[in-house]
């Protein structure tokens, strides 16, 4: 095996995007995962590529660029992962002032956010509960099938000379004189001067193996999946409470519903957020809340049957921003992790940032807000 220029740990959407971007920049890349492709949180993700739920700031800048990069990736790799600019509709249940204010500021930062009144709203979503009288339409919101996307990105990396070793658990990160030089895995040792940690929720473990530290923790989320139904829902529709939840650090359960139809006819209803470690036990009360919220948005869903529910663990950092950049202590160790509930949307943008930094070339934005060094600074 030719010794690679860079190793990417993690075959989720973040690792796959990163591997493709590094490959396209001319590096020979080796991808390592302890399972197979998409066996982590990516396999539980819903595939929303949202700009609508981001407040102005570095994450919105990243989200906007990342959204466009998704379409560039599709041109590069092929139309295999159901990428579609479906558009999002955000509705306010009670008071719409916060929503309209957010839309106003988002527009100033380049988001296409169109305030819609009663008639237009119900034109966009004819089955929406009549009590909703205003909302914001976000044509840029898109979606993809994240597991297929990760698989096709990796397939493309391999076709361009890269490699993927699955079922290889990383057990050690090899560091000498504060410089990384490879990894030890259950399938042997692999050497490279650059190691990218794209292990999502588990990124803290890899950082510790290198003698460093990353405060990334799991946040549980549930999704309900219904039987195939006629097309009742035409965009991603969610309650403006969702935006408040996304930015919250309250450990208690919060639910706010995002409802959308899929190509296969099933309807997805997400997503609760709670900080409960890696507890995988089901909580029927959460399913009930999600169902109640979804049917209050779309009463027609009352007769649609729930088929299954599943959960995943979103990787999150204390300040709810992703961690993208070189490790504060170990040279050559790069992190792209902690994307929480937006890892699919933010994956290609993060990949572009990491690639630019590794190659020392200018990038589309200042990434210091995402730097791993910010936690070390917070401690001091």
């Amino acid at each position, binding site marked *: 095996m030719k010794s690679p220029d860079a190793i990417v740990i993690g075959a989720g959407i973040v690792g796959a995007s990163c591997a493709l971007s590094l490959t396209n920049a001319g590096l020979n890349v080796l991808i390592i995962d302890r399972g197979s492709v998409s066996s982590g949180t990516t396999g539980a993700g819903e595939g929303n590529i949202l700009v609508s739920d981001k407040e102005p700031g570095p994450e919105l800048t990243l989200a906007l660029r990342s959204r466009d990069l998704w379409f560039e990736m599709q041109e590069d790799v092929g139309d295999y992962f159901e990428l579609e600019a479906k558009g999002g509709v955000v509705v306010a249940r009670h008071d719409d002032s916060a929503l309209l204010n957010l839309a106003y500021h988002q527009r100033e930062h380049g988001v296409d956010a169109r305030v819609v009144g009663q008639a237009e709203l119900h034109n966009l979503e004819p089955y929406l509960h009549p009590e909703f009288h205003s909302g914001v339409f976000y044509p840029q919101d898109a979606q993809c099938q994240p597991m297929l996307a990760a698989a096709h990105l990796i397939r493309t990396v391999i076709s361009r000379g890269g490699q993927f070793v699955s079922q290889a658990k990383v057990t050690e990160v090899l560091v000498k004189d504060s410089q990384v030089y490879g990894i030890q895995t259950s399938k042997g040792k692999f050497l490279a001067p650059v190691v990218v940690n794209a292990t999502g929720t588990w990124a803290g473990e890899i950082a510790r193996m290198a003698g460093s530290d990353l405060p990334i923790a799991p946040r549980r989320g549930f999704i309900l999946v219904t*039987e*195939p139904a006629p097309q009742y829902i035409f965009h991603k529709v969610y309650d403006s409470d969702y935006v408040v939840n996304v930015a919250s650090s309250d450990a208690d359960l919060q639910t706010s519903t995002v409802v959308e139809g899929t190509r296969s006819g099933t309807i997805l209803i997400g997503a609760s957020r709670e900080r409960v470690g890696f507890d995988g036990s089901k909580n029927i009360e959460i399913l009930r809340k999600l169902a109640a919220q979804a049917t209050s948005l779309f009463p027609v869903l009352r*007769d649609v049957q729930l088929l299954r529910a599943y959960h995943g663990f979103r990787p999150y950092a204390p300040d709810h921003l992703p961690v993208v950049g070189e490790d504060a202590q170990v040279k050559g160790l790069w992190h792209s992790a902690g994307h929480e509930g937006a890892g699919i949307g933010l994956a290609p943008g993060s990949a572009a940032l990491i690639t630019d930094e590794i190659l020392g070339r200018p990038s589309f934005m200042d990434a210091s807000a995402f730097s791993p060094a910010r936690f070390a600074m917070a401690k001091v």
Partner: protein
Amino acid sequence: MSNDISFFFNGEKFTGTKGQSIAAALIANGQRELRRTRFGEEPRSIFCGIGICFDCVVTIDGVANQRACLIEISSDMKVESSL
């Protein structure tokens, strides 16, 4: 008292016996095909017969995806093949 019950399948009137499932009553009448599949539009009938496989799903009085092998016929029930 007669045990015969009539119901409608895709608009056509059928008669079965009290206690029979929709699927059983239709098969007894020589109507094996219960629906067409979503993608391939292939005809489907019952398969497991006990509510496990969902091959037999029909729309009953407007409610979709009901298992015809489990639900008993009732008077004037309207059963449809498609969504």
